[in-house]
C-alpha cells in the first residue's frame, strides 16, 4: 500500500499527543516539511533535524542550484523563514470508546495515531515530475518569483502537490498558466478542506490544475488559519474559479480577497456558519421506529 505508514515516528514522538499543543505541532510539522530546496539533499530520516535550522543549513543548500529541486536560482540571500512549514494534514486519532493519552497497549490505546504529515519528496521525483520541476524553476526564475513560493513538494499516489504560501499563490498561478513549458490552462477543481479542530492552519484550499497541452495534472495547496482565513482570489487568472471560490467561502468560510462577488452560493444568503467546517454539526433528528429511537448519524457510536 502506498504511503501506508508515513513518517509517524518523528511526529508521534512529540510528547504532546493532544492536538491543542500548537507549538509542538508546528515544530513537528516543520520537521516533516523541510523547504523545497532541501529535499535534494536531506534524506527522509533526518527531516526532523532539518527543521531545527531552517535558515542556516537550508540557505546553504538553497544556493546550491546545481542539484536543485525547485529552488529558484534567485535565492542567494539564504532561505528566509518566508516558506512557512506546511501544516499537518490530518487529525490525531485516539482509540475507541474515548480512550485518551494512556499507555495502554491492549489494543484500544494502540489505535492512537499521530497526525499525518505528507512526506517531502526528494529529487528525482520520478516520471515527468522532474521535467515539470525544472520548467517551473526556470519559469519562476524568469518571473523573479522567489524559491520560497513553494514551501514543499510531495509526490504521493502518482500525484504531485506543491504547498504554496498564499502570498505567492497568484503569481505562481499566472506562471503555471502562461509559461509555454507549463501551460496549466484549466483549473479543474478548487476545493476546500478542513483538517479539524486543533490542527494548526487547518483550512486548506486545494487547486487541481490541468495542462491540456502537456496532459498533466498538478495540485497546489494553500493552508490558512481559521482566525485569518484569507486567500487571494484566483479569478483573475482562472475565471472559472469564481463559483469554486464562492462555494469554498460558503462551506468553509475562507475569504478570497479580490473575488468580484464573494457571496454564498449553495446555502441561503442569510445562513449562519459554514457547514463543512468540522466544528459545524451535521445535524439531523433522531428517527423513531417501532418504539426504538435511532440517533442522527453524527451522534451514533463511532467505530473508526
Amino acid at each position, binding site marked *: *500500500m502506498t504511503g501506508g505508514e508515513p513518517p509517524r515516528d518523528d511526529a508521534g514522538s512529540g510528547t504532546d499527543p493532544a492536538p491543542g499543543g500548537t507549538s509542538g505541532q508546528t515544530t513537528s510539522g516543520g520537521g516533516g516539511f523541510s523547504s523545497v530546496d532541501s529535499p535534494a539533499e536531506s534524506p527522509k530520516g533526518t527531516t526532523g533535524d532539518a527543521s531545527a535550522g531552517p535558515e542556516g543549513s537550508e540557505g546553504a543548500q538553497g544556493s546550491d542550484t546545481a542539484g536543485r529541486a525547485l529552488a529558484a536560482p534567485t535565492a542567494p540571500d539564504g532561505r528566509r523563514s518566508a516558506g512557512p512549514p506546511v501544516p499537518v494534514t*490530518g487529525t490525531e*486519532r485516539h482509540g475507541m470508546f474515548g480512550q485518551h493519552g494512556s499507555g495502554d497497549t491492549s489494543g484500544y490505546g494502540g489505535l492512537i495515531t499521530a497526525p499525518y504529515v505528507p512526506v517531502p519528496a526528494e529529487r528525482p521525483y520520478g516520471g515527468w515530475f522532474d521535467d515539470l520541476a525544472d520548467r517551473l524553476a526556470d519559469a519562476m526564475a524568469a518571473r523573479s518569483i522567489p524559491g520560497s513560493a513553494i514551501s514543499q513538494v510531495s509526490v504521493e499516489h502518482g500525484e504531485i502537490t506543491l504547498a504554496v504560501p498564499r502570498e505567492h499563490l497568484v503569481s505562481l498561478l499566472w506562471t503555471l498558466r502562461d509559461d509555454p513549458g507549463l501551460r496549466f490552462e484549466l483549473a*479543474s477543481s478548487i476545493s476546500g478542506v478542513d483538517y479539524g479542530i486543533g490542527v494548526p492552519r487547518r483550512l486548506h484550499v486545494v487547486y487541481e490544475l490541468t495542462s491540456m497541452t502537456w*496532459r498533466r495534472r498538478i495540485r497546489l495547496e494553500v493552508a490558512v488559519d481559521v482566525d485569518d482565513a484569507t486567500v487571494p482570489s484566483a479569478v483573475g487568472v482562472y*475565471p472559472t474559479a469564481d*463559483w469554486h471560490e464562492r462555494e469554498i467561502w460558503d462551506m468553509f468560510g475562507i475569504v478570497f480577497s479580490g473575488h468580484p462577488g464573494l457571496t454564498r452560493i449553495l446555502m441561503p444568503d442569510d445562513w449562519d456558519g459554514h457547514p463543512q467546517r468540522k466544528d459545524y454539526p451535521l445535524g439531523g433528528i433522531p428517527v423513531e421506529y417501532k418504539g426504538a429511537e435511532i440517533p442522527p448519524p*453524527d451522534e451514533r457510536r463511532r*467505530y473508526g
Partner: protein
Amino acid sequence: MTRARSTRTTEGRVFTVTGGDWDEMLSEAGFDGGTGRLVDEGFSGTGPDAGASGDEEFAGDGGDDRIIINMGPQHPSTHGVLRLILELEGETVVRARSVIGYLHTGIEKSCEFRTWTQGVTFVTRADYLSPAFNETVYCMTVERLLGLQVPARAEVIRVLLMELTRISSHLVALATGGMELGALTAMTAGFREREEALHLMEYLTGLRMNMAFVRPGGVAQDLPDGALEHIRGFIDVMDSRLPEYDALLTGQPIWKRRMVGVGVLPLEGCMQLGITGPILRSAGLAWDLRKTMPYCGYETYDFDVPVATEADCYARFRLRLEEIHQSLRIMRQTVDRLAEPGPVMVDDPKVAWPAQLSIGGDGMGNSLEYIRRIMGQSMESLIHHFKLVTEGFSVPPGQAYVAIENPRGELGAHLVSGGGTRPLRVHLRDPGFVNLQAMPAMAEGSLIADVVAAVASIDPVMGGVDR
C-alpha cells in the same frame, strides 16, 4: 387584488411582480397589449387603473424600462430547480445570472460521517442522471488512496455501466431539451429510449438509478446470467431507433432555427470558464478524458470523439447524438470482453465484502454456506465480517484527485483521508456546476427564448450542481 408595485431606484423604475398581476404591471408600465409595443413617453397607460391612479409613479415613461424577471426555480424549462435572473430590455436579455443551491443536500458533508463504502450510496445521488460515473470516480479515487488495482473484469463492467449511463443521460438531454424548445415528440422518443436503458440497467445491477453497484475494489457482484444477451438486445434496439432522431430532429427546419447560431461560446470563452464536455468539443477542441487521459482501460477500446467547430446549441445536439452511437460502439466491445469470466472484486479480504452473495428465500443476501461457516466454525471470520461491515476499512492518510469524462464533462473526485474508516473530505468536481457558469456568456444579448436553448445545451443536472 394586489397590484404590481413600483419603486424608483437609482437604476430607474423597478416593478415587483408577484404573479397574477402581469397585465396590470404591463399596463402601468405603459405597455399596449393591443399592439404589443411599449407606447410612447408620457402615455398614462391603457389599463383600467393606470390612468385613474393619477400616481406619477405609474406614469409610463417610455421604452427604456428594464424588466428583471425570475425564471425558476420552479420553471419547466430550467432543467430542475435552477433559478435564472434575467434583466430584459424588451425580449432581449441584457444580463443573466443563475442562482443555484435549491437542491443542495449536503452530500459531501454526509459522506464524512459514513464509511468509505457507504459513501458510494451518497455520491451516486449527486448527478442523478449519471450515477455510474459518480460511483466510479469516487471508487477510483478511494482505490488510488488504497493503492489497489481493480480486476480487469470489474473495469469492463464499469465501462459498460458508464457508457450505458452516458446514453441514458444524453437521451434525457435530448428529451428535456427538445421539450423545452417545444419539440414534444423528441421528449417522448427520448424518454422511450431511456426507459430501455434503465431497464437494462435494472437487469444488470438490480436498480434503475442510484445503483451503488460500483464499490471500492471492484463492483458489488458479477453480472447476472443472460446479461450479454440483454446488452446485445439493447444495442439492437438502439441501433434501430437512433435513426429516428436524425429523421425527426437533425434536419428539421424549426429545430435548426431554434439552435443554429444560438448559445455560442467560442473556444476562448470555454477555456477561460473551465468548460469541458460537449460544450468544449462543440467549440473545436477534441478534449475527452477517455482519449486524452485514459482510465479504466479506455485506451484499449476503439471509438471516436466527435468534434464540431460551430460552438452553438445545434453542434452540441449533434455531438450528443453522435456520442450515443460511439457509446454503443464501446458497449459492443465490452460484450466481447465480458464473455470471459473472472473476479469482479479485488482479492483483498481487508477491502472486499467478505461474503459470497446469493439468492435466498428473502432476496439477495449472504449465502447460507457462508453464514454457516462464520457462525459455526470460524470465530475469526465472524469477527472479521463484523468489523468490515460495521466499521469499514481504513484508508491510509493522504489525498487524491481522479477525473473521468462524464456526459457533461470532467467529473472529478477529490478525497482526503485522515487515515480512518471515514473520509475526511469528499469533494465532487461536477461539470454541471462549472459549465453553468457559462450561462451568462451564452445568454446575454440574445432573446429570452434562446436562453432556454442555451441552458438546455449546457445540460446541467441540479443534483450534481448543488450536491
